[in-house]
Each structure stands twice: as C-alpha cells, then as structure tokens.
C-alpha cells in the first residue's frame, strides 16, 4: 500500500513559522461559520425540535399514533435503532481494530469515524426509550436498588441491550475524547477569548511532553484492546434481541456474525457518505486521498460478501430445516407483501457493491458516494425486512397483520437523522475532522521511509 505522495509536502513549513500546513488546512473548517453551514445547522436543529415535539405528542396520546398493529409490535423505531447501532461500528473498527493491526491509513479517517460512532450511539440510544409504551418508566429497565426489591430480568436480551449500549456509549466517548486531546491542545494554542477557556479545560493540561505522549499512546492502545471486543459484542447482543426469540425469521444462530458484518458494512458506507462531502467542502483532498477510499472500498466489498453469504445461509437453512414456519416466513419475505424491501436489500447490499471489484470505481468518489447511499438504504431495509416481515407472518396464520409506517414515526425518524446531523455539524466547528497528530505521524512515517512501505 503506497502512501500518497501528495501528503509529502503537507509538513513543509509555510511562510508563517511554528505552524505546519496540516495544522492550517485541517483547522481551517473550524474557523468562521458561513451561511450554508448555519443554514444546515439551523435545519438540523429545527428537525430535532419537531422530532421531540412529535415524540411528546406520541407519548402523550399513546403509541397508537405509530403504525403498530397486532401482531407487529416493533416497527421503524427498532429498525432505526439497529441501523444507528450498526453505523457506529465502523468507527470502533477503524479506531480500535485497525489500530491494533497497525493499518496506518486509518489515521486520516479515524477521527471522523469515531465521531460518527459517538453520534450514532447517541442517536441509537434514543430509540429504545422512545419506543416504550410508557417511556416515563424507562428507569424500570435499569437494575437500580430500590425499597421494593424490584429487580430486572437478566434473562431478557433487552436488558443485555441496556448494558451493551451503555458500555458502548461510554467506551466510544472516552476513546474519542482521548484521541482528541492533542488536537484540542493545538486548538487551544490558537484560540482566543471564550473558546480558549473551553479548549483549555478540555485539553486537560496537554503540553505534548514525552511522558504525556507515552501515556497517551498507552491509553489508546489499551482502550483499543477494550474496544475491540465491543465491535463484536455490541451488535451481537443487539442481534440476540431477535435471535433469542422464537419468531420464525429471527430465531437463527447466524444472527450475531451476520449482524456484526452488516454493521461494519453499513458503518463504512456511512463513513464514506460523510467523508466524501467533508473532503470536498473543506478541501481536505490532500489528506483524504484515493488511497483511503480504496482501502475503505475493499472493506465494503469484503463485508458485502459476508452479508450476501449470510442472506444466502438464512434462506438455505430455512429450506434445509424443512420447517414450514421458517420456509413460509422466508418465502413470504421474498415474495410476500414486503418483497420490495427484501429485493431492495439484496440488490443494494449484495449486488451493487460487486462493482467495487473494479479499481476505477473504487476511487471514483461520486460513484462511491452514490453506492454508499444505496448501501445505507439497503442496510435500513435489511432491518426492516428482518423485523417487519418476520412479525407479520408468524405461527398463527389467523393473526397475520400488516405494518404501515405512520407520519408520526416518519417525523421521529427524521428527527433522529437531524439529531445526528446536528451533533456532527457542531463537531465540525469545534474539533478538527482529521486527527492532526496522527496524520503528522503518518506523514513523517511516509517521509522517513520514502514512501516505500
């Protein structure tokens, strides 16, 4: 893998001393707030506000305003929950596993990916709460000590979810923050006024000394070690929400690896979907090069194949089991009322990514952007298919039903995307989108080795 030569001059001193080109380039987006940015942020906040208002209405009137009907008791809230949890996985994978594997190319994209993880988990975490029939009773789900000795059910996969998500959220935030410290310190050194105070507090007295760097790299290493199993466990636990049940179409042992692969797949697609416009808008072409996109594309292709395999295995096992419940469930998945979702899922997730076998396409950014958009759509539909089709055609044929998304649900889902965007937009202005310190490391590395790596 050849580091891009374009990066070589990023370290070259400019006219202004004591600052590198990388610092200036990467910090540039944090300066000022042009009107398109403000407009986007305003729209995002508006979306969040409407989402919360609609949510309040839903909680007040009752979940009947959502599209649930017997026997489909979970709908787009859980679908979107799984979707967002999945998105987060790319970040953890990039920052932890690729770190441990010393895949240096990750340095340019890991900040963004980690940020996505944090915001995705923040978004995902909303859904298990807002889908509750009595969301004001959400504290029932936590094992808190109380006088009445009420306890939670440790057999329930939903409880495992509570722990999985809270662990995931805390590790992701810590990881993200530790990685940010050197860059915050750099921002602190350049900031003035009120910003300086905030950055000073957040920088935790970072001076860039040797011992500090040593401690920093140690903590990143250890946190990577801690986070690595999470990549596998969090989505495995989420998948058990389904796999541990008895519903045909859910009850499958393949769910854990299948969900993890899907999560990484979708997560990478989301990273690319965000990275490509960010690179363009903030002119970071120097730091985010074909080299990165090609590597990410390969990952997408790889995970897409795993997903395709998992889909195939599901159908094979359903057929091979000779159990009519399973067979009917899967037959109706593909040819029943939700056939469109199923085929969208298969085409977007398994067929389209095969184009990435062509190197030209792997580095064609408009193509990649479009492809990743479809992958995200496909991954959303994957969860839709798993949840809705399975529930709508269960054991008791006399209790079959149909789920139709309601405007309330659409409003809340839009709100969740705005919520995610809002945090992301705020992040863009607060912190460098590329880990400057790590990029520098990469550049120095490239220089030292003359690119022959």
């Amino acid at each position, binding site marked *: 893998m050849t580091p891009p030569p374009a990066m070589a001059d990023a370290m070259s001193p400019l006219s202004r001393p004591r600052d590198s080109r990388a610092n200036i380039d990467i910090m540039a987006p944090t300066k000022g707030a042009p009107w398109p940015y403000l407009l986007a942020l305003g729209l995002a906040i508006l979306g969040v506000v409407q989402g919360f208002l609609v949510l309040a209405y839903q909680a007040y009137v009752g*979940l009947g305003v959502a599209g649930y*009907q017997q026997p489909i*008791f979970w709908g787009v809230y859980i679908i979107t929950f799984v979707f967002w949890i999945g998105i987060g996985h790319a970040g953890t994978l990039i920052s932890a596993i690729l770190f441990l594997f010393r895949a240096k190319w990750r340095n340019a994209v890991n900040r963004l990916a980690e940020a996505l993880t944090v915001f995705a988990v923040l978004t995902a975490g909303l859904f298990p709460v807002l889908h509750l*029939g*009595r969301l004001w009773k959400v504290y029932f789900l936590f094992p808190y000590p109380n006088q009445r000795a*009420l306890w939670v059910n440790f057999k329930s996969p939903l*409880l495992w979810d509570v722990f999985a998500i809270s662990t995931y959220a805390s590790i992701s935030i810590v990881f993200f923050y530790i990685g940010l410290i050197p860059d915050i310190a750099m921002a602190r050194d350049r900031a003035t006024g009120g910003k300086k105070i905030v950055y000073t507090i957040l920088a935790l007295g970072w001076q860039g000394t040797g011992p500090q760097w040593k401690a920093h790299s140690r903590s990143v290493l250890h946190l990577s070690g801690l986070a690595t199993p999470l990549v596998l466990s969090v989505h495995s636990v989420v998948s058990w929400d389904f796999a541990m049940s008895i*519903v045909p179409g859910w009850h499958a042992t393949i769910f854990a690896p299948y969900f993890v692969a899907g999560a990484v797949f979708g997560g990478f697609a989301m990273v690319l979907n965000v990275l490509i416009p960010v690179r363009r808008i903030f002119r970071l072409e120097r730091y985010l090069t074909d080299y990165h996109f090609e590597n990410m594309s390969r990952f997408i292709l790889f995970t897409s194949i795993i997903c395709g395999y998992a889909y195939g295995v599901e159908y094979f096992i359903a057929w091979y089991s000779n159990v009519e419940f399973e067979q009917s469930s899967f037959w109706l998945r593909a040819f029943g009322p939700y056939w469109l979702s199923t085929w969208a899922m298969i085409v977007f997730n398994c067929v389209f990514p095969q184009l990435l076998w062509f190197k030209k396409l792997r580095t064609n950014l408009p193509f990649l952007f479009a492809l990743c958009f479809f992958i995200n759509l496909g991954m959303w539909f994957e969860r839709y298919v798993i949840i809705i089709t399975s529930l709508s055609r269960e054991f008791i*044929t006399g209790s079959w039903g149909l789920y*139709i998304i309601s405007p309330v649900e659409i409003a809340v889902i839009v709100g969740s995307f705005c919520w995610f965007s809002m945090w992301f937009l705020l992040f863009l202005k607060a912190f460098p989108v590329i880990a400057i310190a790590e990029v520098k490391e990469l550049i120095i590395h490239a220089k030292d080795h003359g690119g022959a790596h």
Partner: protein
Amino acid sequence: MPELDRRDFLKLVGVSAGTAATACADPVEKLVPYVIQPESVTPGLASYYASTCTECSASCGMVVKTREGRPIKLDGNPKNPINRESLCARGQASLGRTYHPDRIPGPLASAGDNTQQAITWEEGMTRLTGSLKKASGRTYILGGPVGPSLSGVLDNLAAASGGKRIVYEPFSHDALLSATEAVFGIRTLPLFDPEKADLIIDMGSDFLATGLSPCENSRQFADARDVRTHPDGGTRMISISPRLNSTTQSSDEWIAAGTGSQGAIAFALAKAVYDKYGAPAGVDEETVEAFLNGPSLSEAASVADIDPGQLQKVAKALLAAEAPLVMPPGVAGTDSSAASTATAVMLINLMTGAVGRSVQIPPASAGTPVATQSDLEALVKEMKAGRVDVLLVHDSNPVYSMPPALGFQDALSQVGTVVSFASMKDETSEAAALVLPNHGNMEVWGDVAPRPGVRSLIQPTIRPLMDTQALGDTLLEATRALGGTAPEGSFFKVVQDNWSDVDWAEAVGNGGVYTDVEIPVPAAQADFSGLAYSAPDMAGSGEFKLLAFPHSMLGDGTGAALPWLQEIPETVTKLEWNSWVELSFATAEKFGVDFGDVVEIETPAGKFDVSVFPRGGIRDDTIAIPTGQGHTVGFYASMEGEGERPSWFQVESPAGTKGVPRGVNVMSILSATPDEKGGRTWLNSMASVKKTGRFRRLALAQWTDNQRERRLAQAVTLAKANGHDDGHHGDGHGGGHHDGPPHTFEAKYDADPKVPYRWGMAIDNDRCDGCNACVAACYIENNIPVVGEAQAINHREMSWLRVERYIGEGHVGGGADRRPIPRLEELGKLDIRYVAMPCQQCGAAPCEAVCPTLATYHNKEGLNGMIYNRCAGTRYCANNCSYKVRRFNYFDYGQENFPGMLGMMLNPDVTVRQQGVMEKCSFCVQRIEHGRQLAKDEDRPIADGEVNVACAAACPTNSITFGNLRDDTSQVVKEADQPNRSYHLLQELNLRSSITYLAKVNREDPEGVA
C-alpha cells in the same frame, strides 16, 4: 379534553423531562367508603340476583352479579332449564344497556325544529294523558312482545284509551306461526330439541346462532353429538342453504341449494315422507295430497340448481332416520311462500313423529298475538289516513326496523302525537313528540312466560341511574288518569300480585318458577286453505337474489347499540363494526371488485352503497347482506362515537357526527311482499350490483382461513376419535399422539412442586360452534375496552380471547397479499374448524423470558402473571408470543373508551389498564383468588368446579373446561384425557401449553345414518 388534568399533566412532565426522572405518573384514585353501609352490601363481595334476559325472545334466565350496588356481569341461571349456566354474547353484552351513553336522561318533548327539550315527569304525564284523552279512541300502542304483567298493564291502557295494541317484532317468525296454525290450529312457536333427533335436516333455520333459542339449541346440539357419550358420532345434520351460515358450518353436509328453493325442497321431501309414512293421524289423505301437490325430488333439485342425486340422498337419509327433525327456514329464508314451506316442514315433522319428540307444540300464549305484516299494513293505512291521533311505542324501534316499502316512516308525520317509552335513544324516540323513558333493563321489575313450565322474573339490580320511570308505572298512571281500570299500587305490586300463586321470595331467588311439564301433542287439525306450493315472488329484475340474513351478533338491529356486539367478529365472516355485501368470488371477479370495494346495490325498493366481502361460501346467483346496521341514532350504533382517535389509515370516515349511519340497513331496500298468510318476508327482492369505484375498508379480524397445514385446528375422523386407526394416513389429521409430534409433556408439572394447583383448560373444538359467547364474557369480566372501527381496521382489538376460524388443513402457499382475505370456502364443502384462543399459560412461556422488567412472570400455580404496574411497554413479550394473545394499550383505552357511565360496569376486581402497557388473558385470576379466599376461610383446598373462568361459564356448548391439572379427578383432567383427539397448539415449539384442545371430529357422510 377540556382541561389538563393531573394525570395528563404528569404525563407531559414525564415527556418534557425526556426521560423518567419525574417518577410516577400513575393516577391516584381514592377509595371512598360508605358513610352508612347498607346491611346487604359487603364491600368487596358480590351479590347475585336472578333475573331474565330480554335481548331476544328465548328469554334465558340469568344471574346478575352486582358489586357495591352495580351490576357488573351477567351469567346464565343454572336453575333455568332453557339456557342453564350459559349465556350468549348478546345476553352478556346487554348489561351495557344500563350504563349506555345513549340512555335518555329524562322525559323529553319535541321543541319543533327536530330538537327535543327536557321536561318534568308531571308535564310529561300531563301531555300523555292530555293527548290520550283528546285522541278519543284513535290510539295505537305499538311495541315488542313483553311479559304477562306488562302486557296486562298495556291492555288496561288500551282499554282505557279505547285504543288498540299491536305487538310488533321484526323477526316475527310469521311463517312458523302460520304453519302451526295450519297443522294444529294453534298459532304458536314450536320448541325444538335437536338433542332428541338422530338426523337434522336444516332448511336454513340457523338455529344455532339466530334461531328461536340459540343458547339452548346449541347446548342440545353439542350434547347430541358428543363423541364420548355417542361413539357413533351422535346426531347428524344436513344443511340446505344458499349461504354458509353459522349453523351450516356445524353440519355434516351442506347442500348449497338455490336461494328461494327451500319451498320446492320442503314440498318434495314432504311428499317423499308422505309416501312412506302416510297421512298423520287426524288428517285425511286427500287434504294432505292436495296440499303436497308440489314438485318431485328431481324437479325440486332442478329448481334448487343442485344435483338430483344429492336431494335423493337427503330424502333417503330422512326416510331412513329413526328420529329425524327438519328445521324450518329461518328469517333469511322467508319468501312469499314461506307459510306454505313452513307448513310442509311442520307436516314432515308430524308425519315422521318428530312432533312430540324433538318438536313440541306449546299452547298459544295468552295475550295479544304478534302482529303479521298485514296488521302493520293496516296500521300504516290508518296512519296515512290521519286516523291515528296517538301512537305509543314501547320496546321496539319501528322507524328503523319496518321496511320503508311499507310506508310507516312516511306515515309517521300524519300521526297526531308519537310517544316513545324507549330507555335508550333510537330512531323512533328521536322522531317522537314525547319521550317518557323507561328504566334500563337492570332497573325494572317484570316477568316472562316463555314456555309451559317456565315462568321467569325480571328484577331490578340497581337503582335507576336516570330520571326515568318504569314503563309499567307510567302506563298505570296514565290508565288511572283516563279513568280506566287499573290494578292498585305500583307496577311492582302488579307483578307481585300476578305471582301470588307461588312463594314470591323463592321465585325471586330462583329467578322464576320452573316445573317439569309434559307438553301434550296437540291433535292435528289440518287446514291448508290458502297454502300451496308456489315459486317465490321476487320483486325486481336485478341479476341477483338478495339474501338478507340475521347478523349473529346484532340480530334485528337491537344489538347494534352495544359496542361489544359491534366489535366481536361476526361468527362466520369475522367482520366487525360495519355492513358488507357478500358476493361469491366469481361474482366479485365479474364486477372487478375485491374486498372493501364499494358497490351499489339496487332493488325496486331502494338502493345503497356497501363494501364487498367476497367469499366462497355463497352461491353465484345470490348476494347477501346482514341485518342490524345502518342506524342513524346512537353512540355506537351510528358513527357518532367513532373516530375520536387519530388514525392514519382510515380511507373514508364520516366519523364523530350525529346522524351518520354506520353501514346500511338492508331492510330499507327490501320489498314489503307478504307471505300467503300476511307474514313478513325477508327474501323478496332481486338486486342489481354496480361498481362505484370507491373503496371503504372493512374491519376484518382474521385475514386468512388457511392454516397452512400447521395443524392449529385439527380434525380427526370418527373412527380415529373412537381409537380405531382409520387407515387414512394421508388425511388422518390430528390426534397429537399418533401422527403429530409425541405428546411428551404433562402440563401439570409446570408449577411450583409445593403448591397443589396448576391451572389448565380443555377446549373441545368439536363442541364449539364459534358463537363468541366466551369472547363477550371475557370482554365484560376483564374490563376489556372496545376500540372502535378505525382501530379495529388496524387490528388493534383488545380481546383477550378470540375464536379463530380455519377451513380444512389449509395448504402451504398464498399469504402473499398485503391484506389476505379468507379464500378457502367452497360451495357445498364443509370442514370449518374453530379454535378458541385464550392465553395458553405456557409452562415454558416465551413471553416471560424476554421481559426486561419481569412484568410478566410465571407464578407458582403455573399462570403467566402480568404486572401492569411494572410494564414499561417494550412489547417484546407480544412479539415473542407464538399464540399472539397479547394485547397492547395503544391509547389510554382504560380511561377513555368507557364513555359516560360505562365505567360503572367495570369489574372492580380487575385492574383497568393504563396507556402503554401490555395485557392478556389471566385465566380470570381474580376468580381464582376469590375461590382461594373462600377455601382458605374453611381451611381446605379449592374444590374442583368451585372456580370457573368467565369464558367457560358462558359457553353455551360447554366446550371449555377449566380446572386444576394436579387434581387427577378434576373435570378438566378427565376432559383432556381423550388421547385420540387431544393436542396442544404448536406443540412442536415445546412451549408446554396448559390448554389441551380436543380435535374436531369429522363424521362420515350422513348417507349411512340409519
């Protein structure tokens, strides 16, 4: 919601805080004790009063359960020989009339411009007596059949005012009355006992659901066919009906004879019977032969458009049977020759000896006979001529239920003063100049004499809730004011005096006096004048015969006001809340319409638009529309109470407005053709169908009748039920022991080893006829809210118990439609299987494991408990329930779906569930706990039969048995121990259900019945 109350405020706080830091948002409700406690009331303990059901003419006995002075549940009166301990869905639901939002608060007088204003009783009585005095004999009293005491009081008023009484009933059974008159000279309704027959030929009577005494007949029919007492399968039934109805479904053979051919078939069969048995005693042969001058069997078969061999077979079976019984056509089959047809049927029963065995001819009841349509025509003529000054209407709703073709509605404006005594507002009370509301059905004294040997009392069980007066008292007062002769004292005294021949206290305690009376077989006095076979006269030139059939829940329309009857899926179609027209699949295809498409139905008498329900169980030349809907007045009966909920899927909803009818009233497009004896007919019109291109979705509770060979509703052959391998491995369905997964577990082990109980149930699908009494009982016992049409369309019914209907074994395939509809019915084919589906109280319940808060859990006695207060509403349990019996409170149903006083009928022993929590069948745990208290007081275990669940108690056919599986002598264990046909639902999932189903028995072809 005018104001923000405390509960809503807390909810809002809870929401705006984002999460739950605000703690508890549950309502605080205060228990207010009696200041002076009545002696007869112990708070927390129910009092029971015997009374009589007045929903239909069967007059079943009932026991009213009251708590703290409020009736909360109706059950059958075990002492009453008619229905014993069971009570049908209509009877169960009638409790709601007392607390109904439609109750008229007090006397009303019309204030011009179609409004009514409240007046005082003094003023009301003054107006009533004033107009009666002025009327100088031009007074008519129109009303439904009432008991002897009230009837006497009505007669007094009629005499005092010089007026005339007309007893009017929409389902009047005129033809049957004419038939008994023709054959025996007695105008009376026969009593049928299917249990005493070995072969029933049903000519479309629908006696199991909408006949003369459905509760009683269902029990008799089920007993007659119980395979344990009748290893030969018991009574067989052949149904002759153009449409698959509730009774046809329970038959062994269905002959889909043409609509309107029942006359031809009856005459042909009668002739065949005559040829074998000869003329009955007391009737000369010429008379019979002259009367039976009708079509031969083959001619009848061609009229009926069926294979002559089929009819030959029926005749053969009829002649071969030892104790045959032919059931005359019911309401749906009354055409212009209905009286002759019924007479022919009655003659068959006389000739075969069924009269005296399975048909009793009671003496004619005293008092005013039920008016025929001719009498009504005469009334309308008088009204039109302006010769009716006062029309008093009681216990009926003629504005709704008279066919407009008769002109009653138009003639009403010619009447001087219309007075309504209704206790609930209806079309007639809205049109009345004066409304003097009667007490509710739980607030009055009364009596009924339904048949020889049964005299029942109606007693009040709650103080009047409204400013109303018992109809009897109003009438007495008016009679006295007119100077007529009236008995002393109040109407209660009148009733008491009429019962002075018996021990009053004992009679009140037992709900009446029941004696074993041998009804003598009256001598035949054949007078067939005016009766002869003729082809029915169908008005109009439409392409289809219009079959107006009685709705099994709503009856003649009186049930439409009761929300439970609207929401409980109709027995055969599983449709709720609205009207539909049944077209055969071929007809629907011809018009290019499918489920929910609106078509225009036109007859000479009128037309209306109605949604299509295509089905296989109806002939191509016939369309069928149920009675009962199309009310323009009433909170539930019309669209007035509908649509307060946001709904995103509702296509067309003129909801929440007064005066908008719910569905259509089929009576409005029927002709007024009478039968030969002037009786009312229901099968009298040809109709044309026109596609409108519009669509109105119907609430269909069950989308498919295909069980995809999943063996949810199993059936065995008779041989198999008796333990013989029938050698048909290919279709030897059912019997979990043999060709299903092995019966590997004993449900009784799934409870704490130290407790003596594990509650369980046995449900006999062979006895079940799908009548829904259990569902109604469950609704009322467990405070289950009714959700309304818009929510029912979204499959959000809250019923804890549903009765699923499957046809045959089904086939793997189909189900790919977005909203499938039942498609397996076939003309002339029967294999309809019902599965009552309460919570299975699994031993290894999938719902319990997944609840994160332990809101649902396994209790020590094996029940799946549900702690509403602990439920956060993740709904995981409902997803994981394989039987789909869990129900979710999508809205604040408990608070909002019991409008007005309906909340007063809530069972105080059962929590009213909050918005956002899950609920399900609890095996009536409140009843178990009550039983436990009683047993504990006496320091003994709960005895078998001491605790019964509401569904099992209500079931007319005793299909459901509840009890303790750990007691080897209990009824439920004995019932479940029928290894040849017992099975557990979805046994292969190993959920260890505590309910044992007994497979339906498919009896072989009735041809072989000797």
